[in-house]
């Protein structure tokens, strides 16, 4: 089962390696991990997407909580939540037909073309991981030059929030 775990962690050097080291040392899967400081610069927020049986997920959350730098943890996938991922994708767009088709697909997916050259388009697209996958599929006819994905960020719906 896929799970999304959000943590608030002291924004200190080495915090990321403690988390990454925990996953590798104990043989847990990481599908994606995102991290950046929060509105309080002393704290970082991480979103970790992982897979495992309930028992493994329980151990993962306990082991993460046990890290001295982890201030708070929430398993987003246990409740109603929103996830988003951002992708930058550079596509060959040299002929008129290519340019039109790529633009049309980007519009359908509500992406933005954020860089244009005579031969390429770069599109920014935000959404669930699935939506990003579908967009890549939709571009099958085109030559993709590069994709950059941010990994998933997540937040709980409603009043529930991960804060100290």
């Amino acid at each position, binding site marked *: 089962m896929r799970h999304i775990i959000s943590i608030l*962690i*002291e924004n200190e*050097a*080495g915090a990321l*390696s*403690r988390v990454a*080291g925990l996953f590798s*040392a104990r043989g847990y899967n990481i599908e994606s991990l995102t991290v950046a400081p929060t509105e309080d610069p002393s704290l970082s927020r991480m979103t970790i997407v992982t897979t495992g049986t309930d*028992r493994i997920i*329980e*151990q993962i959350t*306990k*082991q993460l*909580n*046990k890290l*001295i*730098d*982890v*201030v708070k943890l929430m398993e987003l996938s246990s409740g109603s939540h929103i996830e988003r991922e951002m992708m930058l994708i550079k596509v060959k767009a040299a002929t008129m037909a290519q340019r039109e088709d790529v633009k049309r697909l980007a519009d359908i997916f509500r992406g933005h073309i954020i860089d244009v050259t005579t031969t390429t388009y770069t599109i920014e697209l935000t959404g669930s991981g699935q939506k990003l996958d579908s967009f890549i599929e939709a571009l099958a006819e085109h030559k993709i030059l590069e994709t950059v994905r941010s990994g998933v960020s997540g937040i709980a719906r409603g009043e529930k929030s991960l804060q*100290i």
Partner: protein
Amino acid sequence: MELSGAEILVHCLKDEGVEYLFGYPGGAVLHIYDALYNQEDVNHILVRHEQAATHAADGYARATGKPGVVLVTSGPGATNAVTGIATAYMDSIPMVVITGQVATANIGSDAFQEVDSVGITRPCVKHNFLVKDIHDLAETIKKAFYVATTGRPGPVVVDVPKDITDPNIKIPYHYPKQVNMRSYQPKVKGHPGQIKKAVDLLLSAKRPMIYTGGGVVLGNASEQLRKFVRTLGYPITTTLMGLGSYPWNDPQFLGMLGMHGTYEANMAMHDCDVLIAIGARFDDRVTGKIAEFCPDAEIIHIDIDPSSISKTITVDVPIVGNVADVLDDMNSQLELSSKKPNKKALDQWWKLIESWRAKKCMSYDRNSDQIKPQAVIEILHEITKGNAYVTSDVGQHQMWAAQYYGFDKPNRWINSGGLGTMGFGLPAAMGVQLAFPEETVVCVTGEGSIQMCIQELSTCLQYGLPVKIVALNNRYLGMVRQWQEFFYQNRYSHSYMESLPDFVKLTEAYGHVGIRIERVEDLRPEMERAFAMKDRLVFLDIVTDQTENVYPMIAQGKAHNDMHMSPYADLPQDPERELS
């Protein structure tokens, strides 16, 4: 008061009440060593290898309950310390290890004697710190002690770059009285609802079993445990790490459980219907085959570390909290409860247990013309009246010491259980002897293990530590040989010790007394002679039966009721299983 970083460090240790600092100097810590010079508050013990510094600090911590403290230099000093840090980590021992580091400006440049100590130790510490600013130094040291000694204890490394300790940079010194870390707030009290559930379940048991571990020793909860066990009248077993927290000769005590546990303890585990685990972590040497672990039991688990609970074995009533607090609560509930243990069922259960006990699984050949290792340990118990602090190395001798010494006080049995570190015994004994100069401290070892830290005989001379070394010399890496006998058809691949040193001469060369014992009739008198030399270190090189094995034994991955038994155990027919 303006002090340099080096002076601050030493003041912090003093203010923390550190008696002994186990260490070894080198470039990155020379400023600190200079600050140690000409002060008398913190006694520095110069070991002969950094691994020994960590084990000595660890032994000190296990015997006293206070944190052990270590100081080593950067690079090889730090890497040499890693084995000892990992040893302490696996057994949850409180320790603060200060490692020197190259100057901040040089970090990351492959500078002389630079290793990423924080990175290398990360997986085997409770936490670690790199001090990047002298203004953070005192608070970091305070945090290190706080983290090491609270919650589930463990080693904490503080990496201190050389420029932080520069004698020319001085700042005001203030050692914080306490620290508050928003990200670390260990829980002490157990949940009252869970405790009530546990007490109800315990009182409904027909075949109860109490399984306790190192957490009772670490949490200083022997008194509470004894009261709990006696109130209930239930059988109790302890892990290797819990020995001494309940008296060995009490009739309710079934001995150690697990791979080399007693027949009665393991059978009772297998057949119980309610199990309460107290400060024990369901290690694989204890559980054996997971699928057949306590097949009929509902399980209660008290542990201060939530991640120990339901890690390998799923439990029914988890209680997160400090053992002493939780047992206090349980004891008062038991007193108030109108319900009492089920006497009739309990009588039957004890009858069954006594039938297992009657097999006398710890029997061995008492008429052999060779010295039996078990006999050595029994005599050791008699000579020391069961009051010694016993450290051990790793192997067969460790198991025999655990099985035959008979501990009735906690903190007296000091061994590396989780990591199983050969080389632990002698340095650990040094730490214990420093803590308790008047007590008898024995290191039970093998001719293999002792050679892993033998250089510490020199440290013992320097500080006048009259440790008694009892070496069960079987000329084999005996534990390895035993597995090869049982599971590799006697193919003794590289488990034989050829060209052993003359331990007597070696000990004498280090300035101590060596005694070699070869004949059964010399055993007791020579041991008595050794222990009469109160102020000398004596190395007893005891030539034991090479072929002796540790029994009982549950092979790895086998169930509790599937044991290799000693050929000398009483093996009548399996008693009728009258399970109600």
